[in-house]
């Protein structure tokens, strides 16, 4: 009996070691991609959740970053310097993120870092970057990353507040003044709830019902039944898949005819797939990447969005995601700063802060010493779902 147990244990340990070895091999492979060049390369780091829970976000970020660096190097690099990108996987875990940050700063001596994928990990490593006086451009959304301003930390994704403002603009235009709010109980959902509770009353919009659901909840009919019993003229749902898709399905089941407005957290093809027919008519604020082709020809973002889409799909043979877009913006902003600032961390920081009218996937960025977020409500469009496809409703 005991020998069997021991055998099982050793089997488990061997499997674990094998997996760890596989991971290490993967890492070292990434590091081997050095390019022969004359001038010293610019070393930059990236921390993404390539595996783990946030992998659907981190994977396209890593792929986009690698694609862009390859593009820049093919075009001759930055002022003759090739870019060398070192990617670390933090699995969306705060401790691993901190270890990766220390490694990049101390061992690899990178000039700046792009990432992380999730808000929690960025918040965990911000102080390290301030202490090491190294610029960090985060691909995570939380407003806490840029408020209060940490001089060394920037972010590229749109803030929840601007998404809420976009929805409120839309509601006002439709003459809707009573809404029901339902949110995921995770950090994203609660953040949306706080913003809506703060901003809606200012616009004279009353929240007549507040409901929540858990990330693993599988039936939201009780919450929606409650909403059905109120005078709400629209339901606003704040969460990440799959919960919001179940809300859409349950609303159809309960024959609720009031409009459902989702958040930018579900601006992905997965939501349409999960909600099926129930996705029909759902509205949400979103960046313009998913509706790039429908933008009018003169729109400043149109060309770059279509180019990014084509390049990414061509290289990885899968559709682009907003998250990859956040990495696109971060790398491009950093590349611009490197071009103007050279291999000096303090100058790079200043030049990131001086970034003006940069057209990115998330919107047009204007950083300043007081604003390390750089976007406003204009970063969002209202998008609807029609025939299983995204439809631009209003710019």
């Amino acid at each position, binding site marked *: 009996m005991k020998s069997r147990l021991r055998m099982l244990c050793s089997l488990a340990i061997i499997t674990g070691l094998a997996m760890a070895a596989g991971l290490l091999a993967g890492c070292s492979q990434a590091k081997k991609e050095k390019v022969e060049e004359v001038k010293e390369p610019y070393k930059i780091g990236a921390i993404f959740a390539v595996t783990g*829970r946030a992998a659907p976000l981190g994977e396209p970020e890593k792929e986009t970053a690698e694609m862009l660096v390859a593009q820049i190097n093919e075009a001759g690099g930055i002022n003759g310097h090739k870019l060398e990108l070192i990617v670390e996987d933090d699995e969306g875990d705060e401790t691993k993120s901190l270890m990766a940050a220390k490694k990049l700063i101390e061992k690899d001596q990178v000039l700046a870092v792009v990432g992380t994928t999730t808000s929690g990990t960025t918040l965990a490593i911000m102080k390290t970057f301030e202490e090491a006086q190294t610029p960090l451009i985060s691909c995570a959304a939380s407003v806490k990353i840029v408020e209060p301003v940490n001089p060394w930390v920037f972010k590229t994704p749109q803030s929840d507040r601007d998404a809420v403002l976009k929805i409120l603009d839309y509601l006002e235009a439709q003459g809707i003044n009573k809404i029901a709010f339902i949110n995921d109980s995770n950090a994203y959902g609660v953040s949306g709830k706080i913003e809506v509770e703060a901003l809606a009353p200012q616009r004279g919009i009353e929240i007549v019902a507040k409901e929540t659901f858990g990330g693993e909840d*599988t039936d939201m009919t009780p919450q929606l*039944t409650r909403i059905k019993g109120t005078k709400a003229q629209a339901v606003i749902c704040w969460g990440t898949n799959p919960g919001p898709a179940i809300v859409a399905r349950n609303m159809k*089941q309960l024959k609720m005819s009031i409009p459902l407005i989702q958040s930018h957290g579900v601006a992905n093809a997965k939501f349409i797939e*999960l909600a099926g027919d129930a996705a029909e008519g759902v509205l949400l604020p979103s960046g313009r990447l998913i509706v790039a082709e429908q933008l009018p020809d003169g729109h400043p973002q149109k060309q770059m969005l279509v180019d990014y889409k084509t390049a990414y799909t061509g290289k990885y043979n899968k559709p682009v995601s907003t998250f990859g877009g956040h990495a696109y913006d971060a790398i491009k902003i950093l590349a611009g700063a490197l071009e103007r600032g050279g291999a000096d961390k303090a100058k790079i920081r200043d030049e990131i802060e001086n970034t003006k009218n940069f057209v990115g996937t998330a919107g047009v960025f204007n950083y300043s010493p007081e604003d390390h977020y750089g976007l406003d409500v204009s970063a969002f469009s209202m998008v609807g779902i029609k025939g299983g496809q995204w439809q631009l409703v209003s710019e």
Partner: protein
Amino acid sequence: MTITEQILQYVLSGLVMGSSYALIALGFTIIYNGTNIINFAQGEFVVIGSLLMVTMTEVYGLPMPLAFIIAVAGTALVAFALQRLAIHPLRNSNAMTLIIVTIGASIVLRGISMFIWGKDAYAMRHFSGEEPIEIFGATILPQSFWVFGITIAAVVLLQLFYRKTLMGKAMLATAVNKTAARLMGINVENVLLISFVVSGALGATAGIIIAPLNLAKYDAGVMLGLKGFCACILGGLGSSGGAIIGGILLGVIEALGAGLISSSYRDAIAFVILLLVLFVRPQGLAPLKEMMMGQEKQ
């Protein structure tokens, strides 16, 4: 919607969720009666069943009934393997060791599901039609009737199996007294194996009928398993009648609580009930084993 209509809606929603809890709880009960262990991998059976069903229908395009049989059989096979590879070699250990083994097995099964199906949720077609039906102001999906119907059918089949087949009777006998059963010439090892297979099949059934309503996701088993366990305790551990009543009651209380009190406490309600029952009435609603055994004595 008036308050009565709302309550009717909560009860209907609760009955649907409750039916799946009941089937999961029944799975717990069968294994508990055979081996005296709580199989914490029960929730994974549910998930594997639903994900297999999604693969069979959406990827291979098999007709529903065939896909249903394959998914149930596939999950039963997983349960078979679990018993042979993880439980059987340790059969002489105490129950606590085996319970911990099932926890480990649940983590392994979840990991394997994640590797095979990925981290995304999957949508599944309804068995027939998606147009909601109105009943006195409340609405219900046709799928819900499938859930009720198949749950009832599974319970009836299980009772027939217990009463009419030799194997079923052997399982009951083993549940009452393992040593006596062995002395009567019953192959107890086989009985234990069959109880895993049957409970795997029941878990898969629960997963499959509920998947069109709830989506199928690799990590949904944790919560479903815990809810099923709560239902077991509520109904009285070891009683199959109790498991069914406990499951349905839990589903309805949960829905009413979420609707009438606050949806924030939805999951808390199940666990508060679990604690209350353990404090106040540890034997559950049905006195231990009486319901199932009582019927058998007649």
